[in-house]
């Protein structure tokens, strides 16, 4: 066999072996790691809930009440009546000069009186019209005020209803949060080892700060039970019991980011 044939055979063999080596390593790696993955999967912590907290109701803000401003009542048209035409004084026949003069005087007087009368009448008419107009205006104002008052009371009622709804929702949310709280308390209680030196039923208060995943970030003693061993037991129990089941999003920020929890050995 020539050297060239030998070396080409060796090259092919080397290539095949190198490839087989990599396939072998890949298989080992894949199976090795996925086996570990399954091992991890088998250890699962389960929380038992008697009644699952429902999803928080999506608070739907009621649409703002649309108060339609009623069009103001049409102003009554006040038509100024044209002043009545003064009746011309009946022409007196002039008999005599005096008489004429008297007549003239009288006529003048009459004319003056008539003019006065005419003036008075016009004044009266104008006054009447003014009165009427004022009355109408007052009426309109009254109507408008009534409408405004009605709208105001409607809005107040709406606000009241909204407040009531919000309060109801808040109460419902609070109930849900209490469920979560009870879950946390129950979970912690499982880990508490009550020290034998404890006497009575003292209460210890803790301020717990959580991360959104339910992990404990910080536990601080807010009020001691008077027994340091019991305090320490609860603190370590809180740390051991994590992660807690907590709601997500706003509810978490509002109720579970930082909360105070009281513990008693017997409750």
């Amino acid at each position, binding site marked *: 066999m*020539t050297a060239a044939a030998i070396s080409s055979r060796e090259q092919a063999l080397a290539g095949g072996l*190198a490839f087989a080596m*990599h396939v072998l390593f890949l298989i080992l790696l*894949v199976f090795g*790691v996925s086996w570990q*993955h399954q091992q991890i999967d088998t250890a699962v912590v389960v929380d038992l809930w008697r009644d699952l907290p429902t999803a928080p109701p999506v608070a739907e803000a009621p649409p703002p009440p649309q108060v339609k401003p009623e069009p103001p009542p049409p102003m009554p048209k006040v038509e100024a009546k044209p002043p009545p035409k003064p009746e011309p004084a009946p022409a007196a026949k002039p008999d005599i000069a005096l008489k004429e003069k008297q007549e003239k005087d009288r006529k003048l007087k009459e004319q003056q009186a008539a003019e006065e009368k005419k003036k008075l009448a016009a004044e009266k008419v104008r006054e009447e019209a003014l009165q009427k107009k004022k009355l109408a205006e007052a009426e309109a104002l009254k109507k408008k005020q009534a409408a405004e008052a009605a709208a105001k009371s409607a809005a107040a009622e709406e606000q009241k209803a909204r407040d009531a709804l919000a309060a109801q929702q808040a109460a419902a949310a609070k109930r849900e949060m209490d469920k979560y709280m009870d879950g946390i308390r129950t979970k912690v209680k499982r880990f508490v080892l009550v020290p034998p030196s404890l006497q009575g039923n003292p209460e210890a208060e803790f301020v717990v700060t959580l*991360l959104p*995943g339910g992990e404990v970030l910080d536990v601080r003693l807010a009020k001691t039970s008077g027994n340091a061993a019991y305090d320490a037991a609860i603190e370590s129990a809180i740390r051991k019991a994590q992660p807690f089941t907590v709601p997500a999003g706003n509810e978490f920020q509002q109720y579970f980011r930082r909360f105070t929890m009281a513990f008693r050995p017997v409750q």
Partner: protein
Amino acid sequence: MNATLAHDMSVLSLITGASLPVQLVMIILLLSSLFSWYYIFLKIFTLRRAERQTAEFERQFWSGADLKDLFQRAVNARDSAGSLERIFESGFREFTKHRREPGVDVAALMDSTRRAMRATYQREMDKLESSLSFLASVGSVSPYVGLLGTVWGIMNSFRGLANVGQATLSHVAPGIAEALIATAIGLFAAIPAVVAYNRFAGDVNRLAIRFDSFTEEFSNILQRQVH
């Protein structure tokens, strides 16, 4: 949250989930690993053959066979001859050629013979040492290439972390695991290459010493023949 916790951590998903530069680094490392293993196997075969041939020729040479017979055999089987056989052939050819010339100086004759053997020795050594430098560079460079992929992947995963308000371990861990695969592949390529390089360099060195000592001894034998 649950999506990240339920992250599939098998190797295949880690590789397919990596970013493009990291995948590129992985492909480069995989290719260099393939080639280095190819050369490792090739070198194992070549060196084993060279050792076998050297041992066989030494046995024939020192068993007192006629030099002319040995030379004839080496010329006939030139294709499948070993390195030592070739050194012997070139030296003996030069020696017989020069010896026929009238009035040749012994020192000059031995010098030219030695030069011829030296030249063949260099050629053979070059053949034996070929692609050892490739193994050396794979062994020294691929950890750095893998590290580059890892650094890039971790950079990416931390940049993604900047968008998350609340950073937890489950946000960072998959990205870092993905990135660390690159280092793992780099080490996987480098370790066999380094081990093989050291081993082969030692083997070639031992062969070189054997060739050297043979050259010296053969020169002595030839020099004795002149007188």
